[in-house]
């Protein structure tokens, strides 16, 4: 399991360009920070009011007023800036975040995203997710390809939407898919899987790139 998460996080990190401002969701997306390639210098934005998010705090060295958007104690990098929630979401909604990486419950072939609520079961709220996926220049979904075998990549989302037509790219342990006008488009494949396995694990049609590459992790 840890391996699967590391594969996804490692591939996500290859999407970052030097100088990018990036917002990483809780879980696998946050792990991407551990895989940033040499020579790529990015600033992590945390929607609770920080640009220049650093690694988790060492035990015993927590600063009581410094957490990430998941409420965990973190550090700030040199050159960081703190601001309030209004400025933070001004940055997000205003298109100043280059890449946001989030998990999902469902993504459909038109780029619709559902990741904030399972009615009557688990309703944690959208937090900053709706703002992030509408505002960020590039929206990457990083997640396991299925939920214990149940399809998450669908023809049409069934859960309440987070936003309409916002997803650009999905990175799973099986490969990399882009959302195009023709739906899911497989551009990279993890050599541990076959195209047929990916098709079986996906609830919608998949077009395969004629220049399909091995997934770089």
């Amino acid at each position, binding site marked *: 399991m840890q391996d699967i998460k590391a594969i996804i996080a490692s591939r996500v990190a290859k999407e970052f360009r030097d100088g990018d401002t990036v917002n990483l969701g809780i879980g696998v997306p946050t792990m991407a920070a551990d895989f940033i390639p040499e020579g790529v210098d990015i600033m992590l934005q945390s929607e609770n009011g920080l640009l220049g998010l650093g690694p988790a705090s060492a035990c015993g060295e927590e600063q009581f007023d410094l957490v990430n958007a998941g409420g965990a104690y973190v550090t700030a990098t040199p050159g960081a800036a703190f601001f309030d929630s209004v400025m933070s979401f001004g940055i997000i909604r205003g298109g100043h975040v280059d890449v946001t990486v989030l998990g999902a419950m469902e993504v459909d072939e038109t780029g619709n995203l559902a990741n904030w609520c399972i009615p009557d079961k688990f*309703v*944690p709220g959208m937090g900053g997710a709706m703002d992030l996926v509408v505002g960020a220049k590039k929206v990457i979904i990083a997640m396991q390809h299925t939920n214990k075998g149940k399809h998450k990549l669908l023809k049409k989302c069934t859960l309440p939407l987070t*936003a309409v037509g916002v997803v650009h790219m999905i990175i799973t342990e099986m490969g990399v898919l882009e959302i195009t006008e023709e739906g899911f488009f497989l551009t990279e494949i993890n050599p541990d899987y076959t195209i047929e396995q990916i098709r079986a694990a996906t609830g919608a049609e998949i077009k395969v790139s004629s220049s399909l590459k091995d997934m770089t992790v």
Partner: protein
Amino acid sequence: MKKKIVTAEQAVECIGDGAVIMVGGFASIGTPEELIDALVKKGSKDLTIISCDAGRAGLGVGKLLRNGQVKKLIASHVGLNTEVAYRTPDQPEIYHVEYVLVPQGTLAECIRAAGCGLGGILTPVGLGTAVAEGKETVRVKGKEYLLEEPFSADFALIRGAIADHAGNVIYNMTARNFNTVMATAAEHVILCAEEIVEIGAIDPNHVMTPALFIDSIVGGVKPCRI
């Protein structure tokens, strides 16, 4: 222009049943715990709370929820409060609350709109989702936006790191979050701060909430440990 330094109990004395209250903080950081404790002690009921989140189970707004004082919670994310995130009909003390979930940027911006005299905001966030249900949309330059109405309150309970006797406030790191904007959008703003300093001790360039927004000050609160 000194302001009255009061105890937490004195500060919340004016908060009656049915009040609409903004509570600062994000994931319990920057939350005015001492003011919430005093409000729990006072026991005001049927409160409408506007807050980024639901605190944690038994922390922050979570205390008011546990104590059955909340009628309605307007928030963005309640997942860190396990009692609320997994709420089910067999947990009446939690479930009898009306939850209104709002995108976090919209929440911040609608509070700001109330504080700065705008009639609402035009945001692309929430279009095509449950958030947009029943709401007006406005087209500007061919693009559609959701019209979200301002959020104002009777009271704001906020927390700072340092305040002077005039009410100028400095926040520390990520504890700033919703505290600044909530100070602008409530009729009566109660600030608690870790340290109270003399007027003139804060560099006017570094003030994050100017004194005019603050109505009463509770000093000497403890650093918040989650």
